[in-house]
């Protein structure tokens, strides 16, 4: 009994919705829904054919149920049926259902695509728009495959209605985002760019989103859009508020389009053409001027729209970073917003100023607002605004204001929200280190950090303060005195005990002259904290005690007594017990000389990037801090701690941040004696290099100090060259990118791409040290007759000089002439600190890189399989699984191999079969693969058949290592 009110009113739907709303409980709701689902199911299954209206109503009910959060697993077919209805409202509901409940059933997709195709061809603009909306909403790869060719045509055709053009532009954008490889603009490029000139503002508004996205990816092809965008912008900016009729929003002409135009321009450098540039600067000035004019309306919509344009203009000014005048004006404008009564504007001004702070033209201007920003940090009621203020203080910090900013951040930390404390701690630690001129200030700051926010001080932070104290002998005495005082507090954070224990163990002697901090007083103070601490801290304290015995022989008896007591020597924790036993023994049998050598002061740590910075970067995502930090580093020259000269720890950003455990610059040392290494990682972390507890491991004069001051040892020998280091061949068979080689000096990264029998390999040589490599050469050679099979030529020789921390790129062009087994060799030579380094690697170039996948059905596959039945055409291996036998992992590997993975071919679903053609210049070699895992036995049988015996054999060898 379907009944309609007016239009498409669906009474049954309204009744159902009211029923749901009247449900008193979740259970009642579920009951009602289940009843409805049963009803709809029976209607859909019933013998009586449903009319279009009923179908629409039920589909709409299903949609409603789904949107309530319930799963829907039927009704798709009925929705698809609605698509081909000639009644608009039925079609519309059908499309809505399809867009919301995207389904990956391939038969359905075929039907949907068919309906869309019909509507696109209908020349009825309303139907076309519906179809385009559906493509844009679903945006699947299948749709891209079906329509990516057709839509550009619709977009640029002369007779397409404006509304259809708008939908087509954004539809194409969505498809480009999902499947950029399928959207080929080529011939349409210029006509699409010229949509910026379209008379219809709506068309321009829609098209510009597409153009912006395409410009980001292919800036050169779309660069003509710059001058068009500038003239369009100029026309809007100079128009009176009524000129654009309905595109004027609360007295602001075309705010959305203006923002998008300014955004598009940010894909490009400043225009080279003087006239275009002049016109653009004029626009930007007008926008800045308008900000000073009295508002045309009191409505917040007016000011939001106006300011949206202003902020986008400021982003563009910052992006250009070349107009000092505009930058300073932008900064002043933002300065006004900092005190605006609208919270939103204060938030955005703080955010935008953060980027301005890193420009050399506006850095000083930003700094003048420091008091306002500090005030914001203290008084803003919204934590997200305070967070922005903290970010800005961090960005505007330099040597002149570091003390003030660090002090403010520290005092803010006392009351800061828990959510941002850890990040604040990292920032304070970084600023304190970067701008420390006197190290006592640095030590004070970090100890304050521990005092105020001890729980949020990560290992990186307290490792770092120790590292710096050890490397700077002018601060050691001060550090010892300060930690000694800090430890006097009745309750102090465990991190403070750690730092205190370490520093007094190393430098307690520097304050021992004062009777108030005599050796025994120091020891008693540390030991008073011992019982409150966790195992790793206790382990650290025990090491400090043995160091005390060396520093102060008069404490020996007391400390030995402590070590000897049951709670130490019989401690249930194996690490503590071991330390107690070994230290006790060491203190009683070693001569003073041996003791002095074993327990000598820590040597300075090698230079490296502050791992605190690495941690902050990780927290904020790559790029979030690095830009301004690099700039800072440049501006300040060599002011950093650690005497790093021109290259401070921040500026030597290398591609591989040191893992946190490595912070103290220690290579992990072998476990000492029989010490249980796993039990107390701290032993290794903190003391391994010095090996203070190594009585049994043959300590000699150069023992633990030996390698510290010289260059790091290298795995490769000097001349004559060593044999090729086998690239771990199995690592690159199924992938094209990664790190090929890495040691302490050099990292070689690789990226490669292949098409048919051609390929290109990008090699990245990264200097991990802070010293330049000279006479750097790289040679590629194809030994034996390999060069008759494969050509591998660098496009040009590499630069002979690799600066510290820098990376060089080299491109190799590759051509596969015929199939091959061996790989080309890459030889690298350079001088590092006078010593010649020589290194030979195999390039990860394997025959499977030239595979073209071949799709085929079961019948085809078996027919070809039988054709390749000569014994020499087949290679087979049976081998034990070395890696995960997980089905998805195997699939991923096989796909990485480059062949097509064929579904539903092998009668046994556990098995995998693949097909592909190896493309060489001389010939094409068809290959078939079958992999049979036996999970129970953890074994595989791998069979390869190809028309060429060497190819079968080589592939079989390569692949056997993969699984």
């Amino acid at each position, binding site marked *: 009994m379907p009944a309609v009110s007016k239009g498409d009113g669906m009474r049954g739907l309204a009744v159902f919705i009211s029923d749901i709303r009247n449900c008193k409980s979740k259970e009642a709701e579920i009951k009602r829904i289940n009843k409805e689902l049963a009803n709809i199911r029976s209607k859909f299954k019933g013998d009586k054919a449903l009319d279009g209206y009923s179908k629409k109503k039920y589909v709409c009910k299903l949609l409603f149920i789904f949107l309530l959060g319930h799963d829907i697993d039927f009704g798709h077919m009925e929705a698809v049926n609605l698509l081909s209805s000639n009644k608009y409202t039925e079609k519309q509901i059908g499309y809505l259902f399809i867009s919301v409940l995207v389904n990956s059933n391939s038969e359905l997709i075929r039907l949907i695509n068919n309906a869309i195709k019909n509507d696109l061809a209908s020349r009825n603009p309303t139907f076309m728009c519906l179809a385009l909306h559906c493509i844009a909403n679903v945006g699947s790869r299948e749709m891209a495959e079906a329509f990516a060719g057709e839509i550009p045509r619709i977009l640029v055709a002369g007779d397409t209605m404006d509304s259809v053009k708008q939908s087509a532009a954004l539809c194409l954008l969505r498809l480009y985002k999902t499947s950029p490889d399928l959207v080929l603009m080529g011939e349409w490029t210029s006509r699409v760019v010229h949509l910026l000139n379209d008379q219809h503002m709506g068309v321009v508004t829609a098209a510009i989103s597409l153009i912006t996205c395409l410009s980001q990816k292919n800036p050169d092809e779309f660069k003509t859009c710059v001058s068009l965008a500038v003239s369009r912008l100029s026309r809007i900016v100079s128009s009176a508020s009524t000129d654009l009729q309905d595109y004027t929003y609360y007295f602001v002409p075309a705010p959305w389009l203006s923002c998008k135009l300014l955004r598009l321009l940010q894909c490009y450098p400043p225009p080279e053409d003087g006239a275009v540039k002049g016109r653009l600067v004029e626009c930007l000035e007008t926008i800045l001027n308008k900000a000073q004019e009295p508002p045309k309306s009191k409505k917040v919509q007016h000011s939001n729209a106006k*300011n*949206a344009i202003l902020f986008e203009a400021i982003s563009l000014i910052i992006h250009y970073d070349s107009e000092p005048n505009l930058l300073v004006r932008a900064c002043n404008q933002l300065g006004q917003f900092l005190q605006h009564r609208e919270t939103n504007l204060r*938030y955005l001004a703080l955010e935008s100023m953060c980027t301005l702070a890193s420009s050399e033209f506006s850095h000083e201007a930003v700094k003048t607002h420091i008091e306002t920003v500090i005030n914001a940090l203290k008084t803003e009621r919204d934590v997200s605004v305070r967070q922005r203020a903290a970010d800005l203080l961090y960005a505007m910090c330099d040597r002149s204001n570091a003390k003030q900013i660090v002090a403010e951040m520290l005092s803010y930390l006392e009351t800061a929200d828990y959510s941002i404390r850890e990040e604040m701690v990292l920032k304070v630690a970084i600023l304190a280190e970067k701008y420390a001129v006197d190290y006592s200030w640095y030590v004070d700051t970090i100890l304050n950090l521990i005092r105020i926010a001890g729980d949020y001080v990560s290992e990186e932070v307290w490792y770092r303060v120790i590292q710096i104290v050890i490397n700077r002998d002018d601060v050691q005495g001060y550090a010892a005195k300060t930690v000694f005082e800090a430890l006097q507090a009745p309750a102090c954070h465990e991190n403070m005990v750690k730092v205190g224990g370490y520093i007094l163990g190393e430098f307690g002697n520097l304050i021992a002259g004062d009777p108030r901090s005599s050796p025994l007083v120091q020891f008693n103070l540390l030991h008073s904290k011992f019982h409150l601490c966790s195992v790793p801290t206790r382990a650290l304290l025990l090491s400090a005690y043995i160091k005390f015995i060396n520093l102060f022989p008069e404490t020996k008896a007391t400390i030995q007594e402590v070590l000897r007591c049951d709670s130490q020597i019989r401690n249930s924790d194996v690490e503590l017990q071991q330390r107690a036993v070994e230290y006790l023994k060491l203190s009683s049998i070693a001569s003073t000389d041996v003791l002095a050598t074993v327990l000598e002061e820590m040597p300075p740590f090698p230079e490296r990037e502050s791992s605190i910075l690495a941690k902050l970067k990780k927290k904020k995502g790559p790029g979030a801090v690095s830009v301004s930090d690099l700039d800072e580093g440049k501006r300040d020259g060599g002011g950093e701690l650690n005497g790093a000269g021109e290259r401070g720890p921040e500026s030597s950003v290398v591609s591989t941040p040191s893992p946190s455990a490595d912070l103290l610059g220690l290579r992990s040392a072998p476990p000492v004696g029989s010490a249980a290494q796993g039990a107390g990682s701290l032993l290794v972390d903190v003391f391994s290099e010095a090996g203070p507890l190594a009585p049994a491991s043959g300590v000699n004069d150069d023992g633990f100090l030996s390698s510290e001051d010289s260059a790091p040892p290298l795995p490769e020998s000097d001349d004559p060259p060593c044999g090729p280091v086998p690239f771990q061949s199995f690592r690159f068979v199924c992938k094209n990118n990664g790190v090929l080689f890495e040691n302490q000096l050099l990292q070689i990264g690789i990226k490669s791409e292949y098409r048919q029998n051609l390929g290109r390999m990008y090699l990245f040589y990264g200097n991990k040290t802070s010293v330049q490599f000279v006479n750097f050469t790289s040679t590629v050679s194809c030994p034996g007759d390999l060069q008759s099979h494969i050509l591998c030529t660098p496009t040009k020789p590499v630069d002979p000089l690799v600066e510290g921390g820098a990376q060089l790129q080299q491109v190799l062009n590759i051509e596969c002439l015929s199939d091959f087994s061996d790989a080309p060799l890459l030889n690298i030579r350079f001088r590092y600190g006078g010593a010649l380094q020589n290194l030979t690697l195999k390039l990860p170039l394997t025959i499977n890189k030239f595979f073209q996948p071949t799709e085929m059905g079961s019948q085809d596959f078996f027919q070809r399989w039988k054709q390749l039945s000569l014994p020499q055409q087949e290679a087979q291996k049976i081998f034990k699984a070395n890696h995960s036998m997980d089905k998805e992992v195997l699939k991923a590997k096989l796909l990485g191999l480059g062949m097509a993975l064929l579904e539903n071919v092998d009668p046994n679903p556990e098995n995998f079969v693949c097909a592909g053609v190896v493309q060489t210049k001389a010939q094409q070699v068809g290959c078939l693969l079958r992999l049979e895992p036996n999970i129970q036995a953890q074994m595989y049988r791998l069979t390869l058949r190809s028309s060429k015996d060497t190819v079968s054999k080589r592939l079989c060898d390569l692949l056997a290592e993969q699984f």
Partner: protein
Amino acid sequence: MQFMLLFSRQGKLRLQKWYVPLSDKEKKKITRELVQTVLARKPKMCSFLEWRDLKIVYKRYASLYFCCAIEDQDNELITLEIIHRYVELLDKYFGSVCELDIIFNFEKAYFILDEFLLGGEAQETSKKNVLKAIEQADLLQENQSEDWGGLAAEEVL
């Protein structure tokens, strides 16, 4: 824009529009998390917040929260006005819109949104043009509903 959510003060989701492919599970998780975060904020707080690697822009109209997730380079203020324009469109179409209109005519709310935003970008910002498109469609419906002739017109609610 990556997605838009409309939810009530009680945390009931009234409309969801996703412009990036996500699994149903992920969508539910995001919705739960965001509804909670936004409802916990006090009235005078700013309309923007950082969430995961996205920027959230939200505004409350009567009992409904309108909440958009945009990307790093997107403009917060203009997004706020996208929300406002959408509210104006709903208001004009339904005639001083309220939450109930959106509950009972959810499909219309989707159709209007699709005319205004497509793939997460503004398709047509002119209020007149969007409403014209919707009204034309309604007109098509009216005409077609005559084909149903004879069916009783019962007004509900």
